[in-house]
């Protein structure tokens, strides 16, 4: 089908400006790849097209006519269906029951027609499904096929696939590409959301790149991977470095042969890392290549195989401060002593006055804007919450600092501030494991750069040797 999005803006209820005036055209019988990093706005844009979200402003046109979707059902009736990244099949129901659910309630059993239609769609796409098995028992690749059948069941002409290969094994990825090609042969349009460049190279008729809510580029074959990466992550500038001295000899963190599994798959595969004194090791890569699991394994939150040796204590700045590092409903004082409550205790009892004084010091030293130590954490702005976390962690005086996306979502000034703090800590002798998807930040801070792709460290070396070109290609899996 022919679909158009015009000047789409989306502002969420918490103030996030996710999309800034994006326009997009989709033609029948084409596979359009929507490329970009996490948070670029790809999923949001497509959810608007699929009727799940409503745009703050902007218009949608189907076959030249302006349409307004109140919900996903409206979009489905117009022929648009979306297969979400986190599959939305209902466990405990069989595959055919998931499809029949949309037919509504009634005392009669699933009719033969429903079955026939589902089977026919699957046949046309070249696969077969065990319809009477509980979807929980089906492998993820098969579940995805059921989702695709479900999407097409209502006669969709435009199918949106959101990061479909995240959960697939290589042979399953191949099968998926076959299905996508068949869909194209049948005149359907496919929008393929991804951040993985090799896939784009394989099946896309056209590529549109989003970055920070804006459409920054459009490409047609033949594709130049380097330009794709550049469009995705922005211009890679190498900034003046204010690091002092060379990294030391003694390691503060040693990771050997680390494996992390989730859902039967190896998300981190045999990673080896060393962080030394007075060194910032930046682990870069597009989010979702195992970084989160790596960090969680190192701090002991996730089960893993392999060796993690931390020499001395560590400080930890997680990527999701609200979920992982803070007690939102509690006062700043209780947040400030997290992880070091014993330091403020005498004979098992915490002295809250001492803790309060400590918190006041943190507030002053790190420029946190807050009414006082007893303010509730929830009332601080995101930037100030992060300053609290960073301040708390850096004031531990630990020899290892683990910083996971420490400046994500922060304004420019706070970002700069946090980065300077990390450099200062490093200059003072600490080792920093910086896990970030912001290449600018990595080049600004790092002594050593390692690239992660699909759970493995695919390149590592001193920052002088790791050129932007090499790093970019390794990040994209080339």
């Amino acid at each position, binding site marked *: 089908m022919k679909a158009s999005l015009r000047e789409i803006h989306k502002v969420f209820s918490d103030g996030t400006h996710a999309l800034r005036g994006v326009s997009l055209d989709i033609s029948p019988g084409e596979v359009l790849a929507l490329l970009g990093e996490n948070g670029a706005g790809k999923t949001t844009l497509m959810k608007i097209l699929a009727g799940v979200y409503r745009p703050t402003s902007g218009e949608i046109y189907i076959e030249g006519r302006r349409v307004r979707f109140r919900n996903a059902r409206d979009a489905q009736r117009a022929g648009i269906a979306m297969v979400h990244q986190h599959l939305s099949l209902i466990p405990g129901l069989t595959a055919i029951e998931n499809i029949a659910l949309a037919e509504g309630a009634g005392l009669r059993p699933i009719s033969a027609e429903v079955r026939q239609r589902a089977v026919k769609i699957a046949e046309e796409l070249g696969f077969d499904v065990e319809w009477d098995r509980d979807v929980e028992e089906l492998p993820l690749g098969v579940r995805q096929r059921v989702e695709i059948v479900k999407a097409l069941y209502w006669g969709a002409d435009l199918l949106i696939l959101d990061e479909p290969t995240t959960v697939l094994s290589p042979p399953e990825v191949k099968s998926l590409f076959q299905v996508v090609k068949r869909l194209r042969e049948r005149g359907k349009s496919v929008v393929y959301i991804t951040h993985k460049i090799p896939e784009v190279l394989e099946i896309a008729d056209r590529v549109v790149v989003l970055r920070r809510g804006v459409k920054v580029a459009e490409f047609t074959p033949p594709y130049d991977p380097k330009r794709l990466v550049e469009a995705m992550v922005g211009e890679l500038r190498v900034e003046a470095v204010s690091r002092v001295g060379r990294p030391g000899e003694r390691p503060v963190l040693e990771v050997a042969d680390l494996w992390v599994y989730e859902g039967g798959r190896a998300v981190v595969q045999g990673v080896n890392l060393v962080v030394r004194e007075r060194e910032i090791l930046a682990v870069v890569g597009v989010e979702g290549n195992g970084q989160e699991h790596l960090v969680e394994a190192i701090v002991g*939150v996730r089960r893993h195989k392999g060796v993690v040796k931390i020499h001395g204590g560590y400080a930890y700045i997680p990527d999701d401060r609200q*979920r*992982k590092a803070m*007690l939102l409903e509690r006062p700043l004082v*209780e947040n400030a002593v997290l*992880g070091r*409550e*014993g330091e403020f*205790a005498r004979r098992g009892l915490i002295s809250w006055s001492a803790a309060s004084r400590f918190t006041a010091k943190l507030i002053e030293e790190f420029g946190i804007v807050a009414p006082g130590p007893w303010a509730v954490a929830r009332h601080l702005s995101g930037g100030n919450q992060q300053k609290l976390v960073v301040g708390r962690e850096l004031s531990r005086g630990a020899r290892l600092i683990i910083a996971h996306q420490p400046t994500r979502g922060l304004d420019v000034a706070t970002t700069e501030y946090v980065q300077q703090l990390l450099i200062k800590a490093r200059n003072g002798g600490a080792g920093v494991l910086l896990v970030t998807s912001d290449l600018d930040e990595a080049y600004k801070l790092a002594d050593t750069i390692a690239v992660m792709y699909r759970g493995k460290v695919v390149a590592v070396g001193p920052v002088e040797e790791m050129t932007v070109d090499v790093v970019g290609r390794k990040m994209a899996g080339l």
Partner: protein
Amino acid sequence: MKIQTLSVLNIIAALALAFVIGAVLMWASGYDPASSYYSMLVTPLSDRVYLLSALAFSAPIVLTGLTFALGLKAGLFNIGAEGQVYMGALGAVIAAYFARSLAALPLAFAIGLALAVLWSAVPAVLKMWRGVNEVVSTIMMNWVAYWTVIMAVSTVFANPLQPEESVKTPEAARLTPLIPGTDFTVAVPVAYIVASLMYIFLKYSVWGYRISVSGLNPTAARSYGIKPERAVLAAFALGALTAGLAGVLQVVARPPSYSLMRNLANVYGIGFDGITAAMLGRGHPLGVVLASIFLGVMQEGARHMQIEAGTPFEFVRVVQGLIILLLAVQVLRRP
């Protein structure tokens, strides 16, 4: 639903509405709400003996209320206090059976508390190892305790002279009323002291902090070296200690019988009253104390209501049920 976020206004409104509905029910069945409520709420406060009796009623409720409140702090829904009270009482009876002197008193506490903690170990371990929801497991344990204790008290530990009761606590071991002629034993100050200790524990101790963090944000807890599993265990164990204590006290410190009734009449419902108290008290130890006093007054008042206004004393449970129901209705989740 976060009980801790129930506003005081919510609670007062629930109380008021419950009493209004109760009045309508009473009136519809031919009883007089005005005199009933007067007997229930005012009479106990009017006389020193009655007031002391109300406080005596409140003591075990404070303790079981703490059990539930502590569970909430740790992110648990521990409704096992009822069964742990039975086990505590059983422990006191066992002690009374074997020791016929003053020694029965420390023995009662030792065995009673141990049994209660043991009882809480089952749901605790099930939760940690198998992720079993503690609501199911504690309800089951309550009923197993119920039948176990009834069996014990009807057979081995029955009182040959008075078969409706268990063996009595030996006279030397009894905690008799501090003020003669009342029910006011040392159980009351003990309960309040325990509540104060719990308050201090939760607010000022390192482990209290760790339990709170584990309940509020187990992910953050784990990130910073706190093991939420330990907090869960601690919450179960400490909660069992207070509930078990309530059970022990109901045997060694409850005139006139100083024994356990064969039908568990003097321990039945204490656990559930504790839940009511904890809800009214917003999960805070001091709130639990206040709520327990209120419930104790109601229980004492129920007796007067029956005598003076002729309204059956079970009516108190009706009002209590309404209060909790209204609290559940009025609490809306904040987004």
